[in-house]
């Protein structure tokens, strides 16, 4: 019994911690989960940004790009490793998000590219950026910086949860 109680407490605590760390945004039918980036080495000319976008609506939308005071330019890129060769290309027409689908921007795949960051990204800090969608328009978000090599907890599933997590 005691073990069950401890486990339950652990679950509650970990859920609470996750709630504090995660930050979500809504833009019409788009649910944007936990934008994050990794700390960068000094002088790094680029930084990757990652997030999850779910289209809860009935119309397709498209992530086109964005802007940020923290960088010279904000672009959408796709990375692949095929036959042992790493390649990265700008997503010229952005990336579509079909109704009911979730777009995951994550290391090793499509990502937001911050070109020429004004200063190195530091673990624990946040910086503001605007994401531009074809239909949802401009959405202001904040990117949370995690340590180099780290990956934040997977964004929680909204279904079955109560009110959206406040920032």
């Amino acid at each position, binding site marked *: 019994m005691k073990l069950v109680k401890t486990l339950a407490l652990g679950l509650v605590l970990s859920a609470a911690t996750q709630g504090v760390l995660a930050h979500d945004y809504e833009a019409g039918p788009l649910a944007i989960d936990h934008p994050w980036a990794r700390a960068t080495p000094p*002088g790094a*000319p680029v930084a990757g940004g990652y997030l999850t976008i779910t289209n809860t609506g009935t119309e397709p939308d498209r992530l086109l790009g964005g802007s940020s005071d923290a960088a010279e330019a904000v672009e959408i890129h796709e990375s692949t490793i095929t*036959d042992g*060769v790493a390649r990265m290309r*700008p997503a010229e027409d952005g990336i579509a998000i079909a109704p009911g689908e979730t777009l995951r921007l994550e*290391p090793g795949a499509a*990502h937001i590219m911050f070109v020429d960051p004004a200063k190195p990204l530091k673990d624990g800090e946040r910086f503001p950026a605007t994401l531009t969608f074809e239909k949802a328009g401009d959405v202001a978000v904040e990117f949370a910086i995690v340590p180099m090599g780290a990956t934040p907890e997977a964004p929680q599933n909204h279904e079955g949860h109560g009110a959206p997590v406040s920032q």
Partner: protein
Amino acid sequence: MKALKIIRITAWGAVAIVGGVLLAFSGILPGVEKPGALTSSTVTGVAAIGGPFELTTHGGETLTDEDLEGKPYLVFFGFTHCPDICPTTLFELSGLLADLGPDADKIKPLFITVDPERDTQELLASYMTSFDTRILALRGTKEQTDQAAKAFAAYYEKVPLEGGNYTMDHTAGVYLMDAEGEFMGTLDLHEPRETQLRKLRRLADTAA
């Protein structure tokens, strides 16, 4: 029972051999200059990887293949305009070197930029302060970079983008080279840490 065991071992052996052959031909292993086109030299073994090169470290010193004689080393290609796998590889290697303990001092870890145009010595020197100080970032002229890529049968190419910018395609693997300068295999950043450490210890053990 005994017969069954023999059959089982034989079957698993066959699976291992087929798997190995598939892996060798799938292009996952580096040493394939053109993806998909396996040259006879890569099939016959290690001779294809390792050769003369001369580059400059981020500290400004010249480093050639001859300086590495008798020393195990690992090498990978990348560039700083790479937001993801290049810094992550450097970060992971730093962690692995720390975990290796004294064995790490026997291995020379090398990061060769495929973008010497933008990756100046100053930029590399600043960039490398985030990682294990034993890792050397190397750059050269276009010709020296070509020569180094050739030495490791690595592929890289400059790809022009809109607006006068460009990006680089490059071989992503980490090559393990023993003290004799022979190719020992690759380090996969997605394999379990224990496997990575075992490979690096085996590499360190080749030191004279």
